[in-house]
């Protein structure tokens, strides 16, 4: 495997007696698009928060681009771009003010990203009128598109995108997928994608990690999962569902202290 952007070793997280993440060994190659999959409550968001240094692991080690996040979470601050699961922006500010604040927070000058921004606005049909509206007045899809732009425009080498196309119309979802592809292929960024939308995963995921009840039950290239779990249909969605179902009963949820 090529050089790794993320490497976790026996990473675990307990919330009181509930084991949310159970000794996982993630390996995300640099410059790749890695899809972190799993049913609801599988531990995806907890894992993402640990990678960001927002949650302290109970056990194990996390290395992000060589930085040991588990023992020194301060070091990782400002080095990972983030699109949270739900649209996160200031509802009283306009979309443009939100974008500007995001750039200032990341010490990026507007002039340097203006061409890229214009390109995003064009592709995602974000008009000047929308940009001048308070964020609260935008539709759910428009809000999502603005939040995506805010995370994609940063100069981070590693982006975590949680449900990037959720709530978007077909056209905008398609453009976002093409932008994500460009970010990885053209700009060489590493992308950790968490999504339930099969078209996202089919089009984008080079690598997959499947979490079931906090346990990493599969990790590898996208073709490998198809080969292993759906050789007859060659269908990616089929393969994922089969992994979910086959591992659902295998994985027990241990309780702390028991």
């Amino acid at each position, binding site marked *: 495997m090529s050089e790794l952007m993320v490497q976790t070793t026996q990473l675990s997280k307990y*919330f009181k007696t509930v084991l949310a993440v159970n000794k996982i060994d993630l390996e995300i190659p640099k410059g790749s698009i890695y899809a972190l999959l799993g049913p609801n409550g599988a531990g995806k968001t907890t894992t993402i*928060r640990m990678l*960001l*240094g*927002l*949650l*302290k692991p109970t056990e194990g080690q996390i290395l992000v681009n060589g930085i040991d996040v588990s023992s020194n979470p*301060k070091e990782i*601050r*400002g080095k*990972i771009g*983030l699109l*949270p699961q*739900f*649209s*996160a*922006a*200031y*509802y*009283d*500010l306009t979309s443009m*003010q939100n974008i500007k*604040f*995001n750039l*200032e*927070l*990341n*010490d990026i000058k507007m002039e340097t990203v203006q061409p890229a921004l214009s390109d995003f606005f064009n592709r995602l049909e974000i008009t000047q009128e929308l940009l001048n509206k308070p964020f609260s007045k935008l539709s759910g899809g428009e809000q999502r598109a603005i939040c995506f732009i805010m995370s994609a425009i940063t100069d981070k080498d590693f982006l975590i995108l949680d449900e990037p196309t959720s709530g978007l119309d077909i056209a905008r979802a398609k453009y976002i997928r093409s932008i994500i592809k460009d970010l990885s292929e053209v700009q060489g960024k590493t992308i950790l994608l968490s999504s339930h939308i099969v078209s996202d995963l089919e089009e984008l995921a080079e690598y997959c990690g499947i979490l079931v009840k906090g346990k990493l039950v599969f990790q590898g290239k996208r073709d490998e999962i198809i080969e292993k779990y759906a050789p007859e249909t060659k269908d990616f969605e089929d393969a994922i569902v089969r992994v979910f179902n086959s591992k659902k009963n295998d994985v027990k949820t241990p309780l702390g202290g028991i």
Partner: protein
Amino acid sequence: MAKSNISTKQFRAILKKDLSMLFRKRVAIFVFGGPFIMMFILLGLPSLFTSQQAITLLVFSDDLGYTGVNIGDAIIGNISLYYENDDTITVEEADNFTEVQQTRALGTYIPSNFSELSFTGSPSIYTIDATQSLFTSSLFTEIYTIASKVMSNFVANRSIPNIQSIQLPPTALAEEEILGPKAAAVAMPLSYMIFLLIALNSGSYSIIGFAREKRMRTMEILLAYTHKHSLLVISKVITGLVASLGSTLSYVLGILVGTSLSGDATGDLFDIFGLNFKTLGGGAIVLSFIFVVLALLISTLITMAVDTNMAREAAERISPLVSIGLAMFFYFIVLTSPLTVSTILLINPFYWCYRLCLLLVAGKFTTEVLIYFLLIAGLIFILIQLATRGIQKEKSLYLE
């Protein structure tokens, strides 16, 4: 070097955003406009209907009573001394209580001669008409002070002193002599300002607090991108102070406009808080305001430290109460003895600000000054640390 540079830039961006949010939020209209409207309604509006009515004080002046001292005449002398240029006050004399009852509609009744005690069986009865404004209320307080002094002397010594010898404000205590008259004059206004401003601004925290960031889900982004999390706290505190000072300014303007409508305006901004610029001088007044702002800063930090270390819903309700509780605890104990060191208040940070200010106004640069200074600086540092840890705590961030 590079890290501190990015931190400065991030701080500028966060502060700009926080201030911008403060002025956009609809609630801010209430923070900045609310106190003005409240004071205007309380002081100005009634005066449109009542303030121009003359106030008549009715005083007994013919009866020498038990002691042979004509207190009625002495009180009339005092009133004309203090309020000689006030056209709205008329002093009338009455010879007996029946006359008072007949002229009841005139205004305020002062039983200045104690041979009339038998009217009600109680030594001091004051009847105040609804026409009273803030100004007459202060007049009433002074008359009350005179009368109560006379009465206490009468009860204790069975003698009534010459009313001209009674001092306003009361005679100096031992502690006042140590701290000096300037500190004594600053004491009550300062404690009142600290209490009033903290009470007035306790509600504004909900506008600047982290609960909103959590609701908008921007907290995660801020924590992930900001290098020094303490900057998030400091930015919120500065925004809180701006909100508080704006709200106070609105309150003061409300009083000025309200009293000018009622014709009671003193024309002196500092008089609103009981500070007399001519007697105290600029230095003491500036010091007082600095320490009021310091108390507000501590109040905001206490609110923030409680808020960030608790779950979202409870925090918004409980955190202002903690701050207000401490302010009440401070003010009502200070009221009883403004200049003596209170042991029970030594644990109250607002008292540290108050006491340090008094010592500085008095020019007493003692070890006590250093101790209070260290206590305040240490507390501010600890509260910033607590709040910073609070915003990072997974319990307050995710598990609600």
